[in-house]
């Protein structure tokens, strides 16, 4: 036979297991998010503080170098829980910026042209869809939060003259847990807000607003009611308090220190549930 007819033919090959589809979704989402030059630029920018922190750790463990840099040794650099609190805070701000850019890319492309009916007609449930996007976001944010922080920790362990690691293992755990809480929250928040609005630019703005506006509201509440409870709405502050307690760092803000941990956690959980409700309303096949 020399003439080949290319007709439709059925598929008879292997089929991947159902759980793998979520991974496919996460993989494609991740690729879409990172295909943008801005994402790469933001990530590169996030390395800047990382390098600065590396230098600080180096200087902290090398008194000679420290003398060379700081002529007067009245300031002594110590790498302790407080220092790592600072790194976590810095990286977490970067995570916020990254979320504001990446989360809309994950969701809005699907919503813009009504791809959900086709997407959900495949063997992926709504929960699976959201979870896949969540994993893509979470992975992206991990690369700028606990991964660099733990790398700094490792570097500190390596370059410290005294045996430092064992005594301060709790810092590592605290870094990891603290970062995970924040990026999990950011991920679900970013996805929910992106699903709610039509344009990516607006979604980016709203994600920033969602962090700052409650802070403002909380400030007003605190001032009017003369209480500290308004700070619960101030995510940067409440998260910092949470991290401080996880890392065992010294108090940095007396007013905030009266916030009990369960309250902070409750606020985060409630906000996340609200986000889940938003996603439930928007991620539909019809």
């Amino acid at each position: 036979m020399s003439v080949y007819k290319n007709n439709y033919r059925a598929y008879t090959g292997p089929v991947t297991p159902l759980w793998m589809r979520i991974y496919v979704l996460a993989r494609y989402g991740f690729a879409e998010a990172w295909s943008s030059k801005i994402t790469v630029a933001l990530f590169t920018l996030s390395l800047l503080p990382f390098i600065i922190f590396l230098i600080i750790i180096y200087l902290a463990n090398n008194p000679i170098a420290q003398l060379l840099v700081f002529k007067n040794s009245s300031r002594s650099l110590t790498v302790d829980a407080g220092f790592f609190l600072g790194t976590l805070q810095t990286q977490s701000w970067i995570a916020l910026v990254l979320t504001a850019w990446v989360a809309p890319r994950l969701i809005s492309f699907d919503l813009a042209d009504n791809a959900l009916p086709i997407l959900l007609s495949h063997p992926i449930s709504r929960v699976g869809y959201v979870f896949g996007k969540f994993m893509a976001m979470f992975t992206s944010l991990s690369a700028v939060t606990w991964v660099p922080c733990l790398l700094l920790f490792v570097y500190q362990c390596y370059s410290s003259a005294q045996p430092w690691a064992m005594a301060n293992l709790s810092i590592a755990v605290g870094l990891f847990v603290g970062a995970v809480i924040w990026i999990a929250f950011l991920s679900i928040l970013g996805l929910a807000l992106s699903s709610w609005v039509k344009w990516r630019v607006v979604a980016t703005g709203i994600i920033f607003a969602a962090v700052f506006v409650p802070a403002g509201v909380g400030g007003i509440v605190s001032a009017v009611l003369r209480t500290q409870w308004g700070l619960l709405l101030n995510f940067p502050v409440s998260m910092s308090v949470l991290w401080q307690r996880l890392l065992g760092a010294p108090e940095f803000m007396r007013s905030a220190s009266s916030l009990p941990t369960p309250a902070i956690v409750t606020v985060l959980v409630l906000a996340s549930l609200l986000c889940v409700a938003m996603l439930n309303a928007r991620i539909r096949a019809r």
Partner: protein
Amino acid sequence: MGVIDLDRLEVRLGARTVLDGLTGELQGNAIGLLGPNGAGKSTLINTLLGFHPPSKGSARVFGLDAHRDRARIRGAIGYMPENDSFIGNMTGVRFVRYMAELAGLPSGAALERAHEALFYVGLGEVRYRKVNSYSLGMKQLIKLAQALAHGPRLLILDEPTNGLDPIARLRMIELIKEIRKEGSVRLLISSHLLRDIDETCDEVLILKNGRIAALCNIEAERRSNRSFMELETVGATEKFSVSIRGLGCECACFPGGRIKLVIPDHIEVRDLYVIASEQGVQIRRMNQRRDSLEDIFLRAMDSPMDREAGRSAHVSL
């Protein structure tokens, strides 16, 4: 076990009962889904895809429960929705490959099948462009390609020729007929164009007000009524009709040389031609009246339910 089995299926959306007690077994190779707007066609399709749980009764696709086994069913279904539905930011190939992978194909096989499907539907170089730059016809084709790429067992097409120009429409109908001929895929086609359903489907399900108005095999229903005939003549039509009345046929003349007649059993077509020959009349068109899909549809619409509502579905065809 048919392709789709409905057993007293009831689906409620909010307070409304959209599908009300649907029962039937659909077995055809290509099943047409017809009905007025609001009859429940989209809801039925969404139920088969597992998007709506039934409030009563059940729907089964290839023997699997449409709600409980929806993950398995979705892997075996290709869905081409009516409205625009795509990821604009991706290229055509990437989009189809993504959908194929979600349907369960390994990555390499998905790429191969994506290209195959795109070739089959006729999207050439265009497949490397982003989908949001496509024309309407191409968007319809890419929806079809993504539905086919993973080799589904059931293809659900919702208004596949929507907005297509005549040539593209012909091509789409040809594709559908070829897919049906290949044999491994069953089709469920929902359309408002009776002609499209007539050409492609062998079984038809007509919904009305959430209930089944008709479920029948088109071929079986097309009863050929040999004795009813319609002619279009040129020449001395009056004289011609007088002569055939003389033979024993009842006939009625209409302007433009059209004649409708009833031929008794002892008369043949040949006899008509003999008379036409003698009188120099040309018979330019001749066909025997058969029940067409339009007749089936109108009968289904003009049911007791309708007469109660006082609305007559008379239509000038």
